[in-house]
Protein backbone atom coordinates (compact mmCIF):
# COMPACT_ATOMS: atom_id res chain seq x y z
CA UNK A 1 0.00 0.00 0.00
CA UNK A 2 1.48 3.37 -0.98
CA UNK A 3 2.11 6.17 1.51
CA UNK A 4 -0.50 8.27 -0.26
CA UNK A 5 -3.15 5.55 0.17
CA UNK A 6 -2.32 5.06 3.85
CA UNK A 7 -2.57 8.80 4.50
CA UNK A 8 -5.88 8.95 2.64
CA UNK A 9 -7.30 6.13 4.78
CA UNK A 10 -6.11 7.87 7.94
CA UNK A 11 -7.72 11.15 6.89
CA UNK A 12 -11.01 9.39 6.14
CA UNK A 13 -10.84 7.63 9.51
CA UNK A 14 -10.24 10.87 11.45
CA UNK A 15 -12.97 12.72 9.58
CA UNK A 16 -15.38 9.76 9.79
CA UNK A 17 -14.91 9.25 13.53
CA UNK A 18 -16.19 12.78 14.09
CA UNK A 19 -19.63 11.47 13.18
CA UNK A 20 -19.65 9.23 16.25
CA UNK A 21 -20.30 11.89 18.94
CA UNK A 22 -22.98 13.45 16.73
CA UNK A 23 -24.80 10.16 16.07
CA UNK A 24 -24.40 9.01 19.67
CA UNK A 25 -24.75 12.28 21.56
CA UNK A 26 -23.52 12.29 25.17
CA UNK A 27 -24.41 15.87 26.15
CA UNK A 28 -21.91 17.64 28.39
CA UNK A 29 -20.38 14.38 29.67
CA UNK A 30 -18.43 13.35 26.62
CA UNK A 31 -16.05 10.42 26.95
CA UNK A 32 -14.55 10.25 23.47
CA UNK A 33 -12.00 13.06 23.48
CA UNK A 34 -10.59 14.13 20.99
CA UNK A 35 -13.65 13.14 18.95
CA UNK A 36 -16.27 15.56 20.27
CA UNK A 37 -19.66 16.98 19.48
CA UNK A 38 -19.11 20.69 18.89
CA UNK A 39 -22.36 22.11 20.24
CA UNK A 40 -21.21 25.15 22.22
CA UNK A 41 -23.37 27.99 23.52
CA UNK A 42 -26.20 26.76 21.31
CA UNK A 43 -29.09 27.82 23.56
CA UNK A 44 -30.66 31.20 22.86
CA UNK A 45 -31.66 33.70 25.54
CA UNK A 46 -35.07 35.38 25.34
CA UNK A 47 -35.50 39.18 25.28
CA UNK A 48 -35.73 40.67 28.75
CA UNK A 49 -33.54 41.36 31.76
CA UNK A 50 -30.13 39.73 31.58
CA UNK A 51 -29.30 37.99 34.85
CA UNK A 52 -26.47 35.73 35.90
CA UNK A 53 -25.98 33.84 39.14
CA UNK A 54 -22.57 33.18 40.72
CA UNK A 55 -21.74 31.04 43.74
CA UNK A 56 -18.97 31.19 46.33
CA UNK A 57 -18.18 28.39 48.71
CA UNK A 58 -16.73 29.25 52.11
CA UNK A 59 -15.43 26.59 54.49
CA UNK A 60 -15.12 27.15 58.22
CA UNK A 61 -12.66 24.92 60.05
CA UNK A 62 -13.13 23.54 63.57
CA UNK A 63 -10.85 26.26 64.95
CA UNK A 64 -13.15 28.93 63.48
CA UNK A 65 -11.08 30.15 60.51
CA UNK A 66 -12.87 30.64 57.20
CA UNK A 67 -11.49 30.34 53.69
CA UNK A 68 -12.84 30.61 50.17
CA UNK A 69 -12.91 27.25 48.38
CA UNK A 70 -11.92 27.08 44.71
CA UNK A 71 -12.11 24.22 42.24
CA UNK A 72 -8.43 23.50 42.86
CA UNK A 73 -9.09 22.89 46.56
CA UNK A 74 -11.41 20.00 45.75
CA UNK A 75 -9.46 18.70 42.73
CA UNK A 76 -12.08 19.36 40.07
CA UNK A 77 -12.38 21.73 37.15
CA UNK A 78 -14.30 24.94 37.75
CA UNK A 79 -17.35 23.91 35.63
CA UNK A 80 -17.17 20.39 37.12
CA UNK A 81 -17.41 21.77 40.66
CA UNK A 82 -20.17 24.18 39.71
CA UNK A 83 -22.44 21.79 37.81
CA UNK A 84 -21.70 18.69 39.90
CA UNK A 85 -21.86 20.11 43.40
CA UNK A 86 -22.46 23.86 43.85
CA UNK A 87 -25.70 24.03 41.90
CA UNK A 88 -27.21 20.90 43.57
CA UNK A 89 -26.01 22.19 46.96
CA UNK A 90 -27.68 25.53 46.27
CA UNK A 91 -30.93 23.69 45.53
CA UNK A 92 -30.75 22.06 48.97
CA UNK A 93 -29.19 18.74 47.96
CA UNK A 94 -27.45 17.79 51.23
CA UNK A 95 -25.56 14.89 49.60
CA UNK A 96 -23.59 17.48 47.56
CA UNK A 97 -22.76 19.31 50.79
CA UNK A 98 -21.66 16.10 52.47
CA UNK A 99 -19.49 15.17 49.48
CA UNK A 100 -17.76 18.56 49.58
CA UNK A 101 -17.07 18.35 53.33
CA UNK A 102 -15.74 14.80 52.99
CA UNK A 103 -13.52 15.79 50.07
CA UNK A 104 -12.14 18.89 51.82
CA UNK A 105 -11.44 16.88 54.96
CA UNK A 106 -9.54 14.35 52.89
CA UNK A 107 -7.43 16.69 50.73
CA UNK A 108 -7.55 20.04 52.56
CA UNK A 109 -5.15 21.51 55.12
CA UNK A 110 -7.62 21.48 58.03
CA UNK A 111 -10.81 19.82 59.20
CA UNK A 112 -13.97 21.49 57.89
CA UNK A 113 -16.85 22.00 60.33
CA UNK A 114 -19.21 24.00 58.15
CA UNK A 115 -19.75 24.98 54.52
CA UNK A 116 -21.57 28.14 53.42
CA UNK A 117 -22.71 28.65 49.87
CA UNK A 118 -23.13 32.33 49.04
CA UNK A 119 -25.13 33.11 45.92
CA UNK A 120 -25.14 36.42 44.07
CA UNK A 121 -27.44 37.49 41.25
CA UNK A 122 -25.97 40.03 38.82
CA UNK A 123 -28.39 42.03 36.68
CA UNK A 124 -27.31 44.03 33.64
CA UNK A 125 -28.87 47.52 33.67
CA UNK A 126 -28.22 50.61 31.56
CA UNK A 127 -26.22 52.27 34.31
CA UNK A 128 -24.06 49.22 35.03
CA UNK A 129 -24.64 46.08 37.11
CA UNK A 130 -26.97 45.50 40.06
CA UNK A 131 -25.96 42.77 42.55
CA UNK A 132 -28.49 40.96 44.76
CA UNK A 133 -27.35 38.63 47.55
CA UNK A 134 -29.51 35.52 47.81
CA UNK A 135 -30.05 33.43 50.98
CA UNK A 136 -26.99 31.51 52.17
CA UNK A 137 -27.14 27.70 52.19
CA UNK A 138 -25.31 26.05 55.07
CA UNK A 139 -24.09 22.48 55.54
CA UNK A 140 -24.63 20.90 57.96
CA UNK A 141 -27.86 22.82 58.51
CA UNK A 142 -27.73 21.87 62.17
CA UNK A 143 -24.08 21.42 63.29
CA UNK A 144 -25.07 19.88 66.64
CA UNK A 145 -27.15 17.21 64.90
CA UNK A 146 -24.31 16.45 62.50
CA UNK A 147 -21.93 15.72 65.36
Amino acid at each position, binding site marked *: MSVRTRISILILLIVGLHALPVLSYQGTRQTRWPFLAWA*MYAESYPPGPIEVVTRQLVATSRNGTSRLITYRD*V*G*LSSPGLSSGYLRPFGRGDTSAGRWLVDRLNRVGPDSVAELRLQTFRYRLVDSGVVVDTLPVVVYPANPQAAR
Partner: protein
Amino acid sequence: MRIVVVGVEMLWFFPSLSYQINLAVSNTAFQYPQPLIRLVTAIVPREVLFTPAGLTAIYWVSMAAGLLAVVGLFTRPALLVYALCFGFFVSHEYSYADVHHPEALYLFFVFALALSPAGDRLSLDALLRQRRARSTGRSNVDTGLSDLAMWPLRLVHVLLSMTYFSTGVTKLLVGGFQWMNGYTLQYAIFKNVITRQPLGMWLAHQHTLCIVLSIGTILFETFFFVSLFLPRLAPLFFAGGLLFHLGLYYTSGHSFFEHMLLNATLLIFYDPVWFPTQWNRLKAALGFRSADAPIGAAH
Protein backbone atom coordinates in the same frame (compact mmCIF):
# COMPACT_ATOMS: atom_id res chain seq x y z
CA MET B 1 5.57 24.92 10.59
CA ARG B 2 6.47 22.32 13.24
CA ILE B 3 8.76 24.84 14.95
CA VAL B 4 5.87 27.29 15.33
CA VAL B 5 3.14 24.86 16.41
CA VAL B 6 5.24 22.87 18.88
CA GLY B 7 7.36 25.76 20.16
CA VAL B 8 4.44 28.10 20.86
CA GLU B 9 2.36 25.39 22.54
CA MET B 10 5.28 24.28 24.73
CA LEU B 11 6.12 27.81 25.80
CA TRP B 12 2.65 29.12 26.58
CA PHE B 13 -0.22 26.68 26.35
CA PHE B 14 1.00 23.20 27.36
CA PRO B 15 -1.10 21.63 30.18
CA SER B 16 0.06 22.74 33.63
CA LEU B 17 1.89 20.02 35.56
CA SER B 18 0.80 21.35 38.97
CA TYR B 19 -2.87 21.24 37.89
CA GLN B 20 -2.44 17.68 36.60
CA ILE B 21 -0.87 16.58 39.89
CA ASN B 22 -3.60 18.35 41.87
CA LEU B 23 -6.28 16.47 39.93
CA ALA B 24 -4.51 13.13 40.34
CA VAL B 25 -3.88 13.36 44.08
CA SER B 26 -7.28 14.88 44.96
CA ASN B 27 -9.25 12.17 43.19
CA THR B 28 -9.13 8.45 43.83
CA ALA B 29 -10.79 7.51 40.53
CA PHE B 30 -11.63 8.96 37.13
CA GLN B 31 -15.19 10.16 36.77
CA TYR B 32 -15.50 9.98 32.99
CA PRO B 33 -12.24 8.41 31.73
CA GLN B 34 -11.37 9.38 28.18
CA PRO B 35 -10.28 6.69 25.67
CA LEU B 36 -6.53 7.29 26.01
CA ILE B 37 -6.77 7.13 29.82
CA ARG B 38 -8.83 3.92 29.61
CA LEU B 39 -6.13 2.46 27.39
CA VAL B 40 -3.27 3.55 29.66
CA THR B 41 -4.94 2.32 32.86
CA ALA B 42 -5.62 -1.02 31.22
CA ILE B 43 -1.85 -1.43 31.01
CA VAL B 44 -0.53 0.54 34.01
CA PRO B 45 -2.57 0.82 37.24
CA ARG B 46 -3.74 4.29 38.28
CA GLU B 47 -1.82 4.07 41.59
CA VAL B 48 1.46 3.63 39.70
CA LEU B 49 1.28 6.23 36.95
CA PHE B 50 -1.09 8.93 38.22
CA THR B 51 1.17 10.04 41.06
CA PRO B 52 3.24 13.24 41.31
CA ALA B 53 6.38 11.28 40.32
CA GLY B 54 4.68 9.47 37.42
CA LEU B 55 3.10 12.61 35.97
CA THR B 56 6.31 14.61 36.41
CA ALA B 57 8.25 11.93 34.51
CA ILE B 58 5.77 12.00 31.61
CA TYR B 59 5.83 15.80 31.63
CA TRP B 60 9.61 15.89 31.18
CA VAL B 61 9.44 13.22 28.49
CA SER B 62 6.97 15.43 26.62
CA MET B 63 9.18 18.51 27.07
CA ALA B 64 12.22 16.59 25.79
CA ALA B 65 10.24 15.26 22.82
CA GLY B 66 8.91 18.74 22.09
CA LEU B 67 12.40 20.20 22.18
CA LEU B 68 13.70 17.52 19.81
CA ALA B 69 10.77 18.20 17.48
CA VAL B 70 11.53 21.93 17.48
CA VAL B 71 15.25 21.52 16.70
CA GLY B 72 14.46 18.70 14.31
CA LEU B 73 16.41 15.80 15.76
CA PHE B 74 14.63 12.45 15.31
CA THR B 75 11.85 14.79 14.25
CA ARG B 76 9.02 12.41 13.41
CA PRO B 77 9.40 10.04 16.39
CA ALA B 78 9.77 13.11 18.62
CA LEU B 79 6.54 14.59 17.22
CA LEU B 80 4.75 11.31 17.80
CA VAL B 81 5.90 11.10 21.44
CA TYR B 82 5.06 14.77 21.98
CA ALA B 83 1.57 14.28 20.53
CA LEU B 84 0.96 11.19 22.69
CA CYS B 85 2.08 12.99 25.85
CA PHE B 86 0.00 16.05 24.99
CA GLY B 87 -3.03 13.81 24.37
CA PHE B 88 -2.35 11.97 27.61
CA PHE B 89 -2.35 15.15 29.74
CA VAL B 90 -5.43 16.65 28.12
CA SER B 91 -7.27 13.30 28.36
CA HIS B 92 -6.30 13.08 32.03
CA GLU B 93 -7.66 16.55 32.75
CA TYR B 94 -10.90 15.77 30.95
CA SER B 95 -11.41 12.48 32.80
CA TYR B 96 -12.71 14.39 35.82
CA ALA B 97 -16.23 15.43 34.79
CA ASP B 98 -15.53 18.26 32.40
CA VAL B 99 -14.61 18.23 28.71
CA HIS B 100 -13.65 21.19 26.53
CA HIS B 101 -12.81 21.62 22.88
CA PRO B 102 -9.72 23.80 22.38
CA GLU B 103 -6.97 21.15 22.24
CA ALA B 104 -8.64 18.45 20.10
CA LEU B 105 -7.74 19.74 16.63
CA TYR B 106 -4.23 20.68 17.72
CA LEU B 107 -3.66 17.03 18.70
CA PHE B 108 -4.77 15.82 15.25
CA PHE B 109 -2.47 18.35 13.64
CA VAL B 110 0.62 17.28 15.59
CA PHE B 111 -0.16 13.62 14.88
CA ALA B 112 -0.46 14.45 11.21
CA LEU B 113 2.87 16.29 11.32
CA ALA B 114 4.49 13.18 12.80
CA LEU B 115 3.32 11.23 9.74
CA SER B 116 4.36 13.92 7.26
CA PRO B 117 7.85 14.78 5.93
CA ALA B 118 8.30 17.18 8.89
CA GLY B 119 11.99 17.66 9.60
CA ASP B 120 13.12 17.35 6.00
CA ARG B 121 14.09 21.03 6.12
CA LEU B 122 15.18 23.47 8.85
CA SER B 123 16.24 20.61 11.10
CA LEU B 124 19.27 18.91 12.57
CA ASP B 125 18.09 15.75 10.78
CA ALA B 126 18.49 17.53 7.42
CA LEU B 127 21.93 18.88 8.38
CA LEU B 128 23.10 15.43 9.45
CA ARG B 129 21.79 13.92 6.20
CA GLN B 130 23.69 16.49 4.15
CA ARG B 131 26.85 15.89 6.16
CA ARG B 132 26.57 12.12 5.72
CA ALA B 133 26.05 12.55 1.99
CA ARG B 134 29.13 14.79 1.71
CA SER B 135 31.34 12.44 3.73
CA THR B 136 30.38 9.47 1.56
CA GLY B 137 31.05 11.50 -1.57
CA ARG B 138 27.43 11.31 -2.76
CA SER B 139 25.81 14.45 -4.06
CA ASN B 140 22.83 15.36 -1.92
CA VAL B 141 19.89 15.23 -4.30
CA ASP B 142 17.31 15.65 -1.54
CA THR B 143 15.77 19.11 -2.09
CA GLY B 144 13.68 18.93 1.06
CA LEU B 145 10.57 19.41 -1.05
CA SER B 146 7.66 16.96 -0.93
CA ASP B 147 4.14 17.02 -2.27
CA LEU B 148 3.08 15.28 0.97
CA ALA B 149 4.25 18.15 3.17
CA MET B 150 0.95 20.01 2.96
CA TRP B 151 -1.48 17.29 3.98
CA PRO B 152 -1.47 18.12 7.73
CA LEU B 153 -2.49 21.68 6.84
CA ARG B 154 -5.21 20.45 4.48
CA LEU B 155 -6.48 18.06 7.14
CA VAL B 156 -6.67 20.72 9.83
CA HIS B 157 -8.39 23.05 7.37
CA VAL B 158 -11.06 20.39 6.78
CA LEU B 159 -11.40 19.69 10.52
CA LEU B 160 -11.71 23.39 11.35
CA SER B 161 -14.39 23.72 8.66
CA MET B 162 -16.30 20.73 10.05
CA THR B 163 -16.18 21.88 13.65
CA TYR B 164 -17.06 25.51 12.90
CA PHE B 165 -19.94 24.32 10.71
CA SER B 166 -21.14 21.98 13.44
CA THR B 167 -21.01 24.78 16.02
CA GLY B 168 -22.82 27.26 13.76
CA VAL B 169 -25.52 24.88 12.62
CA THR B 170 -26.16 23.66 16.19
CA LYS B 171 -26.80 27.26 17.24
CA LEU B 172 -29.39 27.60 14.48
CA LEU B 173 -31.00 24.20 15.21
CA VAL B 174 -31.12 24.57 19.00
CA GLY B 175 -31.36 28.32 19.51
CA GLY B 176 -33.05 29.18 16.22
CA PHE B 177 -32.84 32.62 14.65
CA GLN B 178 -33.47 33.95 18.16
CA TRP B 179 -29.79 33.21 18.76
CA MET B 180 -29.11 36.42 16.85
CA ASN B 181 -31.46 38.60 18.96
CA GLY B 182 -28.53 40.28 20.72
CA TYR B 183 -29.74 39.18 24.19
CA THR B 184 -28.13 35.74 23.73
CA LEU B 185 -24.69 37.18 23.10
CA GLN B 186 -25.12 39.80 25.83
CA TYR B 187 -25.98 36.98 28.26
CA ALA B 188 -23.12 34.74 27.08
CA ILE B 189 -20.59 37.56 27.47
CA PHE B 190 -22.01 38.84 30.77
CA LYS B 191 -21.95 35.33 32.26
CA ASN B 192 -18.23 35.04 31.56
CA VAL B 193 -17.01 38.52 32.42
CA ILE B 194 -18.53 39.41 35.80
CA THR B 195 -15.77 41.24 37.71
CA ARG B 196 -13.34 40.50 34.84
CA GLN B 197 -12.59 41.80 31.33
CA PRO B 198 -13.74 45.46 31.20
CA LEU B 199 -13.99 45.17 27.39
CA GLY B 200 -16.49 42.31 27.76
CA MET B 201 -18.50 44.23 30.34
CA TRP B 202 -18.70 47.18 27.97
CA LEU B 203 -19.72 44.90 25.08
CA ALA B 204 -22.39 43.18 27.19
CA HIS B 205 -24.12 46.58 27.45
CA GLN B 206 -24.14 47.14 23.65
CA HIS B 207 -27.33 45.45 22.44
CA THR B 208 -27.17 46.57 18.80
CA LEU B 209 -23.49 45.68 18.48
CA CYS B 210 -24.28 42.25 19.99
CA ILE B 211 -26.91 41.67 17.28
CA VAL B 212 -24.31 42.50 14.60
CA LEU B 213 -21.68 40.27 16.24
CA SER B 214 -24.19 37.41 16.65
CA ILE B 215 -24.99 37.51 12.94
CA GLY B 216 -21.26 37.68 12.21
CA THR B 217 -20.61 34.66 14.45
CA ILE B 218 -23.27 32.54 12.75
CA LEU B 219 -22.07 33.57 9.29
CA PHE B 220 -18.41 32.91 10.12
CA GLU B 221 -19.01 29.53 11.76
CA THR B 222 -21.54 28.23 9.25
CA PHE B 223 -19.73 29.37 6.11
CA PHE B 224 -16.08 28.90 7.07
CA PHE B 225 -16.17 25.69 5.01
CA VAL B 226 -16.53 27.80 1.84
CA SER B 227 -12.80 28.49 2.20
CA LEU B 228 -12.18 24.86 1.21
CA PHE B 229 -13.49 25.64 -2.27
CA LEU B 230 -11.95 29.12 -2.56
CA PRO B 231 -8.25 28.54 -1.83
CA ARG B 232 -7.25 32.01 -3.02
CA LEU B 233 -9.56 33.59 -0.44
CA ALA B 234 -8.81 31.02 2.29
CA PRO B 235 -6.17 33.22 4.04
CA LEU B 236 -8.86 35.83 4.64
CA PHE B 237 -10.97 33.19 6.42
CA PHE B 238 -7.95 32.19 8.54
CA ALA B 239 -7.30 35.83 9.43
CA GLY B 240 -11.01 36.05 10.32
CA GLY B 241 -10.67 32.94 12.50
CA LEU B 242 -7.69 34.41 14.31
CA LEU B 243 -9.54 37.68 14.98
CA PHE B 244 -12.69 35.73 15.97
CA HIS B 245 -10.84 33.81 18.70
CA LEU B 246 -8.88 36.86 19.84
CA GLY B 247 -12.20 38.68 20.15
CA LEU B 248 -13.72 35.81 22.14
CA TYR B 249 -10.72 35.79 24.45
CA TYR B 250 -10.61 39.52 25.13
CA THR B 251 -14.38 39.92 25.54
CA SER B 252 -15.43 36.64 27.18
CA GLY B 253 -12.25 34.89 28.30
CA HIS B 254 -12.70 31.87 26.02
CA SER B 255 -9.16 30.51 25.80
CA PHE B 256 -9.14 28.84 22.40
CA PHE B 257 -5.39 29.36 22.12
CA GLU B 258 -4.86 26.26 20.00
CA HIS B 259 -7.45 27.48 17.49
CA MET B 260 -5.64 30.81 17.32
CA LEU B 261 -2.40 28.92 16.74
CA LEU B 262 -3.94 26.73 14.02
CA ASN B 263 -5.57 29.66 12.22
CA ALA B 264 -2.29 31.61 12.41
CA THR B 265 -0.36 28.60 11.09
CA LEU B 266 -2.80 28.21 8.20
CA LEU B 267 -2.59 31.94 7.50
CA ILE B 268 1.20 31.85 7.27
CA PHE B 269 1.84 28.48 5.60
CA TYR B 270 -1.29 27.44 3.67
CA ASP B 271 -0.47 29.51 0.61
CA PRO B 272 3.32 29.77 0.19
CA VAL B 273 2.94 32.98 -1.80
CA TRP B 274 0.08 34.88 -0.14
CA PHE B 275 1.53 35.61 3.28
CA PRO B 276 5.06 36.64 2.18
CA THR B 277 3.51 38.90 -0.47
CA GLN B 278 1.20 40.58 2.04
CA TRP B 279 4.01 40.88 4.54
CA ASN B 280 6.30 42.55 2.00
CA ARG B 281 3.46 44.87 0.96
CA LEU B 282 2.90 45.82 4.57
CA LYS B 283 6.59 46.47 5.11
CA ALA B 284 6.79 48.53 1.93
CA ALA B 285 3.71 50.51 2.90
CA LEU B 286 5.10 51.23 6.36
CA GLY B 287 8.47 52.12 4.91
CA PHE B 288 6.86 54.38 2.34
CA ARG B 289 4.86 56.17 5.02
CA SER B 290 7.77 56.62 7.38
CA ALA B 291 9.95 57.90 4.52
CA ASP B 292 7.30 60.39 3.46
CA ALA B 293 6.20 61.43 6.89
CA PRO B 294 7.05 65.00 7.76
CA ILE B 295 9.86 65.28 10.29
CA GLY B 296 7.69 67.05 12.82
CA ALA B 297 4.95 64.38 12.63
CA ALA B 298 6.54 62.34 15.40
CA HIS B 299 6.08 65.10 17.93
